[in-house]
């Protein structure tokens, strides 16, 4: 045992938890921690806004599977983190946010930069802590990491008063081990429920797997692949489930939901058995619940008991670790006798898949679909792509075919614009050898574009593709479809992105013609530093197909023009 300050204990605990990189912004109430940080093997990324710090920690966690860490000071530093924390909460991403707090004697006195951040973040954290004494730091940090990672992961916030950082106490890492009671471990799946599920699978004529983020979070992609290969069952994926099975896998039908593939949504409505694995039947994937998959029995496997039966009535609900369930099923699995169903699915798919994005005439226009398709080809589908929220996000999901888990990083549940640029910084820090691309709209980019300075300061090789259509595109699309083209507050005047990037010392190019995309992307991949592209794409393009909010899943708005709906040209 040694005597350390609370600040030193904090960093020592972080280092022992395996933390190597943190994303933060200093300030008065967190200064003792920053001062102590210099003594520990921690790489600190200075962000330009605390929201960026949380998104970076989030991107770091999604890319690596490790816990991401963000640091900020009290008051405004802490409140700026709220959006990033809520983003991580909705997508079950393990991050630990550390905020300074005014001295414990000042709490409740409306002191300078005082803010009740544990109160504010209570509904958007998995758990949070207010630490007022140095001797509480070690146990709190250890417990926080356990809570963040365990079960359904999520964000945890630790608010540490300035005096708790400054005062010292005897420090014993081992004695600070969290109690086993903190985590409610799920029991092994019961044999009865597993057998019941297998019986349904055996009887099914038209089964379909709905594969979600839980497969990736639960590190069960290998088990899932084996399950799919053994049974030959078709698979539909959620936005966050992309990458859980290679896009090129013959059983992978593609994305479901509001902007999912038409054949996937139709298949869901025709299926007689849905096996939902680590997904939560979000309204964006179900459409109208009253008409959702009425022909299908539902098996729902999730680690969170609160998800079972939440939106969709379940025939068999299994609360367990997904890997455990898939491993338990594996010995009993056989190839399913579903040739007719596969033929039917192929027919559905074939109708929409005959068109070819690559050779689609562009008539001198630059389409976002083309840009993303060309980036996919140029990067051989191997890049880590970090997307923002909006039309470009859906186009990326449709036209960039991900082969590996953790290669699409995007804000799904909360739909946080401004996520992409900072999250990409986190992803690049987590995977320095990965080719990281940001695909972002002109609107979302401007929400967090200050982080270009962070990219420059950290000298990060990140390629940024701004899909610039001069509108808040997804909102404009809704206005076009549902508000008779009254474009209230969606036309968007942007700065000269090329000049802007150059001001940060970042190479930048404006691309306006299809034929310039591939050479520019190839050159950017060779360039040692970050490159930003301002892709001037078709202004009033829309994402198809589209299930209007609350509409029946099979009643999709289809693309009227001959341009392909999908990138099914592989």
């Amino acid at each position, binding site marked *: 045992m040694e005597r350390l300050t609370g600040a030193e204990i904090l960093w020592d605990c972080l280092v022992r938890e395996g933390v190597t990189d943190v994303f933060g912004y200093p300030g008065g109430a967190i200064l003792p921690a920053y001062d102590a940080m210099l003594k520990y093997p921690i790489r600190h990324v200075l962000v330009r806004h605390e929201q960026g710090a949380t998104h970076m920690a989030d991107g770091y966690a999604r890319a690596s599977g490790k816990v991401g860490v963000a640091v900020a000071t009290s008051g405004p530093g802490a409140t700026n983190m709220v959006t990033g924390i809520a983003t991580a909460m909705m997508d079950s991403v393990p991050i630990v946010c550390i905020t300074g707090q005014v001295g414990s004697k000042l709490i409740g006195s409306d002191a300078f930069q005082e803010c009740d951040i544990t109160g504010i973040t*209570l509904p958007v954290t998995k758990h949070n802590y207010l630490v007022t004494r140095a001797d509480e730091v070690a146990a709190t940090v250890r417990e926080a990491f356990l809570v963040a990672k365990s079960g359904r992961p999520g964000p945890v916030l630790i608010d540490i008063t300035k005096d708790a950082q400054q005062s010292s106490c005897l420090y014993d890492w081992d004695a600070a081990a969290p109690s086993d009671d903190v985590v409610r471990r799920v029991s092994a799946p019961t044999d009865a429920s597993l057998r019941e599920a297998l019986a349904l699978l055996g009887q099914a004529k038209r089964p379909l797997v709905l594969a979600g983020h839980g497969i990736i979070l639960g590190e069960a992609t290998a088990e899932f692949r084996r399950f799919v290969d053994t049974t030959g069952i078709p698979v539909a994926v959620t936005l966050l489930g992309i990458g859980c099975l290679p896009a090129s896998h013959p059983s992978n039908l593609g994305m479901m939901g509001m902007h999912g593939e038409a054949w996937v949504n139709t298949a869901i409505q025709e299926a007689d058995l849905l096996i939902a694995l680590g997904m939560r039947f979000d309204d964006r994937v179900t459409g109208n619940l009253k008409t959702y998959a009425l022909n299908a029995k539902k098996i729902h496997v999730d680690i969170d008991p609160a998800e*079972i039966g939440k939106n969709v009535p379940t*025939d068999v609900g299994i609360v367990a670790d997904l890997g455990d369930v898939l491993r338990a099923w594996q010995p009993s699995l056989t190839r399913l006798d579903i040739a007719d169903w596969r033929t039917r699915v192929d027919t559905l798919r074939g109708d929409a898949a005959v068109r070819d994005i690559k050779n689609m005439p562009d008539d001198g226009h630059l389409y976002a679909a083309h840009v993303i398709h060309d980036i996919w080809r140029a990067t051989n589908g191997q890049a880590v792509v970090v997307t923002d929220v909006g039309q470009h996000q859906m186009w990326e999901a449709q036209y960039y075919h991900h082969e590996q888990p953790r290669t699409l990083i995007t804000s799904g549940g909360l739909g946080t614009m401004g996520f992409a640029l900072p999250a990409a910084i986190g992803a690049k820090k987590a995977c320095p050898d990965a080719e990281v691309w940001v695909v972002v709209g002109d609107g979302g980019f401007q929400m967090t574009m200050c982080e270009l300075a962070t990219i420059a300061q950290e000298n990060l090789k990140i390629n940024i593709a701004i899909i610039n259509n001069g509108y808040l595109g997804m909102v404009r699309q809704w206005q076009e479809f549902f508000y008779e083209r009254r474009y209230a507050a969606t036309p968007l005047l942007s700065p000269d992105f090329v000049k802007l990037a150059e001001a940060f010392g970042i190479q930048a190019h404006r691309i306006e013609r299809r034929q310039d995309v591939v050479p520019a992307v190839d050159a950017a991949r060779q360039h040692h530093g970050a490159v930003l592209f301002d892709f001037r794409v078709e202004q009033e393009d829309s994402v198809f197909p589209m299930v209007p909010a609350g509409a029946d899943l099979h009643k999709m708005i289809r693309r009227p023009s001959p341009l392909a709906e999908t990138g099914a040209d592989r």
Partner: protein
Amino acid sequence: MHITYVVHVEDKPGVLNRVSSLVRRRGYNISSLTVGHTDTPGVSCITIVVEADPSAAARIEANLYKLVHVVRVENVTALPTVYRFLALIKVSASVETRTQIMQIVDVFRARVVDVATDSLMVEVTGTDEKIDGLLDILRPFGLLEVARTGQLAMTRGNAARGAAAKAAAADDAVDSAVVSFSV
């Protein structure tokens, strides 16, 4: 319908806020809430009555279990359970009416706990209906002040688990979630 949970929680700052906030943000209304110590040091008991659809009951329970400080959750709604409220009632009482009021109080098995020159304070425990009944009878005398607690609940006999270990309780919750959702 009204669903009653008996929730044992670690006695940590803010724990009541966590429980009530969870119910609120999931869109349910709390119709009664009572908090007190238990026999176990460091563990408090929250009796919480929630207005919700029966289908939501298991989900609220599962969500409560997700709170780190929640030790055990019992949905006692369908179990044989003793429910009790407590009320303190200050009623106008003159020399002429005092005896009459005290007789009524006796019939309700309530107690007079304070006597003043022009009023009486009555303590009554029982079901909501019993307390409402006493208030109706006393109202003509002139109610000066009424303070009522929320509902306390305890299952009869061995209807519920004893002080089960947290891990076991969590396992049960998981199993019951599976069972209750398996049609």
